[in-house]
């Protein structure tokens, strides 16, 4: 790919990532915020593709877009009175949080502008080699942490089921159905 095409792709993906991210925190409608998250995550997946991390493109689409985003949208629908766009969405801390984070960002930008990383000393491995190396490392060097992560995920899923299950000490079924809707 030519230099110009690479730069253009990076710029387009930057916009595709950052603009929806800003919309997520600025829109008043909670459901719209959830949907704005989608292009942002797709933009990050595109950046992974530019980094030749093909496994992460797939994982980003499967895990973030397929699972996490859908889960977030589901729980928005389960708690539907907060989807009211008229409800206040911001606490009073906009004047504090924005300057702090802008300062942090500016410091990072300043440091990066002063000390840019030199071009990598190592010749970048091809995409296929990276994926092969990742697979080998997952069943080799990092096998034990990988298993620990899977146990963590299993525990988290069991815990989530236990948490979200209706308490058994409230037998009347009618009451239970009425409660989650919050339409009294």
């Amino acid at each position, binding site marked *: 790919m030519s*230099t110009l095409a*690479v730069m253009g792709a990076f710029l387009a993906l*930057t916009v595709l*990532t*950052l603009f929806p991210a800003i919309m997520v*925190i600025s829109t008043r409608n909670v459901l719209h915020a*959830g949907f704005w*998250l989608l292009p*942002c995550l797709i933009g*990050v997946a595109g*950046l*992974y593709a530019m*980094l*030749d*991390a093909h*496994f*992460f493109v797939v994982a980003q689409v499967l*895990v*973030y877009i397929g699972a*996490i985003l859908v*889960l*977030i949208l589901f*729980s*928005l629908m*389960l*708690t539907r009175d*907060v989807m009211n766009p008229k409800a206040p*969405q*911001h*606490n009073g801390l*906009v004047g504090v*949080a*924005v300057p*702090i*984070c802008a300062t*942090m960002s500016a410091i*990072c930008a300043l440091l*990066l502008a002063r000390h840019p*990383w030199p*071009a*990598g*000393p*190592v010749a970048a491995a091809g995409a296929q080699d990276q994926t092969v190396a*990742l697979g080998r*490392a*997952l069943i080799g060097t*990092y096998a034990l942490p990988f298993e620990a*992560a899977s146990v*963590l*995920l299993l*525990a*988290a899923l069991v*815990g*989530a089921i*236990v*948490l*979200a299950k*209706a308490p058994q000490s409230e037998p009347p079924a009618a009451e239970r159905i009425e*409660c*989650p809707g919050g339409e009294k």
Partner: protein
Amino acid sequence: MDPITATHYIGLSAILFAIGAVGVGIKRNPIVIFMCIELMLNAANLALVAMGKHLGSISGQMMAIFVMAVAAAEVAIGLGIIVSIFRSRETIDIDEVNLLKL
């Protein structure tokens, strides 16, 4: 020669992280706060993958895999907690969920 270096990716990642941090600071709905945490985790993942490529090492991608696993676990548990709070209190506004406050 690749015109986009690790510096660009780290800068983008810092901006994305700052946006997420602002969202966590100013939002009242915990589900939107979750979305902002996801933004921050994505920024961290991007930085890890970019540095992994820059250093020619697989460790960056490996760390990003674990970040992703922890993010999935965290969102499952967190949303379970939110649904459960909504059941018992009829609201999930974090300014009103204040039983632990003195």
